[in-house]
């Protein structure tokens, strides 16, 4: 009976000690490697844009494609936008939304949002449609910009959902101005 107890105790000690000592011996020259595998550096490279096919620290590239579609009935502008994925892994641009602000008066004059989500493979470019609705700014544009055919606006309070990670950019991060048609232009 004591023999059985001894054998069971030896089994317990062996299965506990051997793997741990084995791991320590395997990494004795590099104890950090026991806790930080080399793949961590690879991932850090991806984050910093140092590896992979699209790798670059340029940030996402966003460019309008072609002329905007203007619908004067619904006061809506539809603009195709090319999004380049600069990181070496696939992403999905699930949503993008923001307020359209008149540059001259800092007044909200519309809202912008992405029509559909778009999946962008690593390093590639895909097109999505940005829909800008200007109904919100009717009063402002009628009263203060009635004589201007185009109004200079900027996007503020921009919120972007990339593969489930939501980025909220404040005003200073999004300083892209654009000219959009004034639906309430009276000449």
């Amino acid at each position, binding site marked *: *009976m004591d023999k*059985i*107890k001894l054998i*069971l105790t030896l*089994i*317990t000690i062996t*299965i*506990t000690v051997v*793997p*741990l000592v*084995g*791991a320590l011996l*395997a*990494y004795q020259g590099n104890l950090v*490697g*026991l*806790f*930080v*595998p080399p*793949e*961590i550096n*690879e*991932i850090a490279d*991806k*984050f910093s844009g140092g590896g992979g096919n699209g790798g670059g620290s340029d940030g996402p590239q966003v460019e309008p494609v072609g002329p905007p579609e203007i619908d004067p009935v619904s006061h809506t502008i539809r603009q195709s936008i090319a999004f380049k994925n600069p*990181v*070496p*892994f*696939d992403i*999905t641009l*699930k949503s993008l939304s923001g307020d359209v602000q008149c540059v001259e008066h800092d007044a909200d004059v519309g809202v912008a949002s992405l029509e559909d989500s778009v999946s962008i493979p690593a390093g590639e470019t895909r097109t999505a449609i940005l829909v800008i609705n200007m109904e919100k700014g009717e009063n402002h544009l009628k009263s203060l910009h009635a004589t201007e055919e185009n109004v200079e606006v900027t996007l503020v309070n921009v919120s972007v959902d990339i*593969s*489930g*990670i*939501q*980025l*909220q*950019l*404040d*005003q*200073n*991060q999004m300083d892209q101005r654009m000219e959009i048609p004034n639906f309430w232009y009276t000449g």
Partner: protein
Amino acid sequence: MAKINWFGFAGGVTTIVMIAVSMVYPWWRLTVGDGLLTANASPVNTNFGALGTSFSIPFIWALNVVSLLTLLASAVAMLIYSVIPGKSYSKQLLNFGYKKPLFIVVFFVVGLVVTMLICQTVLSLSIPLMGSTTSTLSIPFVSGVNITVLLSAGFEWSFWLAVVGAALCIAARLYHKKVAAVPRV
């Protein structure tokens, strides 16, 4: 007819099935965003995924091997015990085997909770044990950008199989007196 401790037998079989299943299906899974970061944890196989790269941590791998061998030894002891519960050494086999699956389940859950508390304290990142939550990250030296991530976590069916296995092993211990009792003449 020889007496069999059916609870012990079922506990041993369940533990072996659970070991095999846990190699593929984690006990607990954490997903950040839409799978940009993942953690698949079980006492016998823990791995992580980030941006399409999967990896394991050697120290955790060694702990997984310890757990795997411990569970395997426990299951074998329970199976041997369950078919010969009346032998003189059976009680020792039972004592060797019945507690280990429970201890591993408890240590696993305690380990998860401690890891979450450390993440909460050190990184100010609140990770749910079960369910989903959003967490705001701050980026050093970068102002004007708020990053919010969706964290989803939960126990998988393999964890509940382990709980059943542990419960059967405990039941085997409670049932032992009945199967090992010497009948009075």
